[in-house]
């Protein structure tokens, strides 16, 4: 390949990588934790009653009774029967109609509601500590938490595209993809960092391409607003309607005539029969209590989570009306498959661990790339003194080590903040970002050389002590979870402990290397001195 072309690609890879590596690292870490969001949720709500099981028909009756009472005139109800890791409890969601001729449009949040119900009592689950849980943590990877949603979306859209550029240019730049497929040469400084960066990237390339490209599919309306704009102009309402029709949602008109809602359980039984015995995974009731009410019984399965489609029934008579195809057309099927692969909701325990592993590999890929930039420039003393070098080095410590510490702080805050505190969930996040801020400052006031190992030690302690903290503050500690065989809770503590040990090993390595460097420094100085003396004498002789 043309040398100049490769050189320009190297430049592009280096600079898009360097400028955006810290935000990409943040996205990879929080996104990876998203693969275990439900498990983190569970750990962060230690008072929550244990997951419940029930036949969908039974659960749906409980849900309908509650919704009849709390949200009778709603536009839609969504009912998710309990089952699987995503739904440990019966979940209901409702959307109230936008009041007509209201002077100011009401806050959309105030028109929505959701609740987890206790199957035994039919009432909402008892209050637990207010927490953002795994959901807030995982949403950070595309909402960045403190930013306005629209701005965050656009920004993340651009960053995702740059990640894609980074992957493609990386493939072009890497000269020996096959020749050095399994190559890692440890203990060789700059060489080792590049080897590891290559090894991580090449072995996980299918995952990285999939996760980045599907990330772009999420952002398709950010990147390609022109198609909708060209067709519908600035008519946002019309665009929305056409888009939701494209994904198979048919709007239902209100008759404004009251009619009692049909019993839901028999519809579920009918749908189950049509699916050869497979149970429904969700029920949507449109316009409950209206004469035009409809009930859609849905089943999501497969990677795309829409494969099962659904059946639509008349909401008053209970008559079967039509089958809603799971996949309305090919583009939607492709998009849904890519999005399904990205979210990994279909993954069972083994594949979920593998997703976690792939996410960590991606995280390490970004981190090793960032460190390689400094490792490459470390050897020349001039660059080492430059402001740019010190800036990158400090940001590397504060992000690569600091972000995990901050996430540990998020978990610590969950256990330590008083349960009755106002805005408690917000403060969990504030604690996380405050700690991260401190970690970013630390290498600035202290030398980065010390900061690496100090933060690694701190991260080791912060994670390894999580099981202890959990034991001191709750009843769901390892002593309980291991004995009860509650593997979700036990895994959280055990993984935290393992993470702590991993950081301790990294810290040990860094301290040892830093000590080694200090010991070898006088020698280097002497060498330099003698060589300069030699040249001096050489010059004198000449």
């Amino acid at each position, binding site marked *: 390949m043309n040398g100049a072309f490769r050189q320009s690609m190297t430049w592009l890879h280096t600079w898009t990588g360097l400028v955006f590596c810290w935000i990409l690292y943040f996205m990879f870490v929080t996104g990876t934790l998203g693969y275990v969001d439900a498990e983190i949720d569970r750990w962060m709500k230690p008072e929550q009653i244990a997951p419940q099981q029930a036949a969908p028909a039974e659960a749906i009756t409980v849900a309908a009774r509650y919704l009849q009472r709390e949200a009778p005139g709603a536009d839609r109800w969504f009912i998710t029967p309990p089952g699987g890791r995503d739904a440990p409890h019966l979940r209901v969601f409702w959307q109230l109609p936008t009041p007509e001729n209201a002077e100011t449009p009401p806050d959309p949040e105030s028109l929505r509601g959701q609740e987890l119900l206790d199957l035994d009592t039919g009432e909402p689950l008892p209050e637990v500590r207010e927490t953002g849980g795994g959901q807030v943590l995982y949403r950070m990877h595309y909402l960045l938490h403190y930013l306005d949603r629209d701005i965050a979306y656009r920004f993340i859209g651009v960053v995702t595209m740059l990640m894609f550029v980074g992957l493609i240019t990386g493939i072009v730049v890497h000269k020996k993809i096959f*020749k050095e*497929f*399994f*190559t*890692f*040469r*440890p203990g060789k400084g700059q060489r080792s960092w590049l080897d590891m960066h290559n*090894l*991580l990237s090449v*072995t*996980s390339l*299918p*995952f990285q391409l999939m996760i980045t490209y599907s990330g772009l599919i999420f952002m398709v309306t950010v990147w390609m607003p022109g198609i909708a704009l060209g067709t519908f102009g600035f008519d946002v309402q019309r665009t929305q309607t056409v888009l939701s029709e494209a994904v198979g949602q048919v709007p239902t008109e209100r008759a404004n005539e009251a009619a009692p809602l049909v019993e839901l359980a028999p519809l579920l039984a009918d749908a189950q029969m049509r699916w050869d015995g497979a149970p429904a995974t969700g029920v949507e009731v449109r316009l409950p209590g209206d004469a035009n009410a409809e009930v859609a019984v849905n089943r999501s399965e*497969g*990677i795309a989570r829409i494969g099962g489609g659904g059946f639509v029934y008349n909401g008053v008579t209970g008559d079967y009306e039509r089958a809603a195809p799971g996949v309305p057309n090919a583009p939607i099927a492709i998009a849904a*498959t890519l999005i399904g*692969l990205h979210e990994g909701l*279909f993954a069972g325990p*083994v*594949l979920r661990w*593998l*997703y976690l*592993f*792939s996410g960590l*590999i991606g995280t390490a890929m970004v981190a090793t790339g960032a460190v390689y930039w400094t490792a490459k420039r470390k050897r020349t003393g001039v660059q080492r003194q430059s402001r740019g070098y010190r800036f990158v080095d400090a940001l590397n410590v504060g992000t690569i080590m600091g972000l995990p510490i901050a996430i540990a702080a998020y978990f610590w805050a969950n256990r330590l903040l008083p349960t009755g505190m106002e805005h408690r969930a917000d403060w969990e996040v504030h604690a996380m970002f405050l700690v991260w801020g401190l970690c970013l400052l630390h290498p600035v006031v202290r030398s980065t050389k010390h900061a690496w190992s100090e933060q690694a030690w701190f991260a080791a302690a912060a994670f390894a002590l999580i099981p202890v903290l959990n034991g001191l503050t709750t009843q769901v500690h390892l002593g309980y979870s291991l004995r009860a065989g509650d593997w979700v809770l036990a895994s959280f503590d055990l993984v935290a402990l393992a993470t702590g040990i991993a950081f301790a090993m990294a810290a040990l390595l860094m301290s040892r290397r830093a000590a080694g460097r200090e010991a070898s420094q006088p020698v280097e100085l002497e060498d330099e001195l003698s060589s300069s003396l030699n040249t001096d004498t050489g010059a004198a002789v000449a």
Partner: protein
Amino acid sequence: MTGFFLTILGVCALSLGMKRHFLQVFPALRFSRARQYTARFAGALLLIAAAFACVSDAGVGLGLTIYVAYLNLAAFGLALVLAWRASSLREF
């Protein structure tokens, strides 16, 4: 699980089709053209077999997803083993 074992064997065979890794594991042997092609051919066959094992186990979509994840894990793990523990592979 069969899929995973076949994937591991497949990447091991492929690595033995490369001079550097072949000599890491068998320092006393000569890396010949015949050995190179045998190892590569066996590796390719094993990896194809692994893909079929995964697909027959979990269906096309899910099976291939799992297969790609296995490949990632096996290749990365093998590279670390070759870097630090190539000597222990010699005992085989």
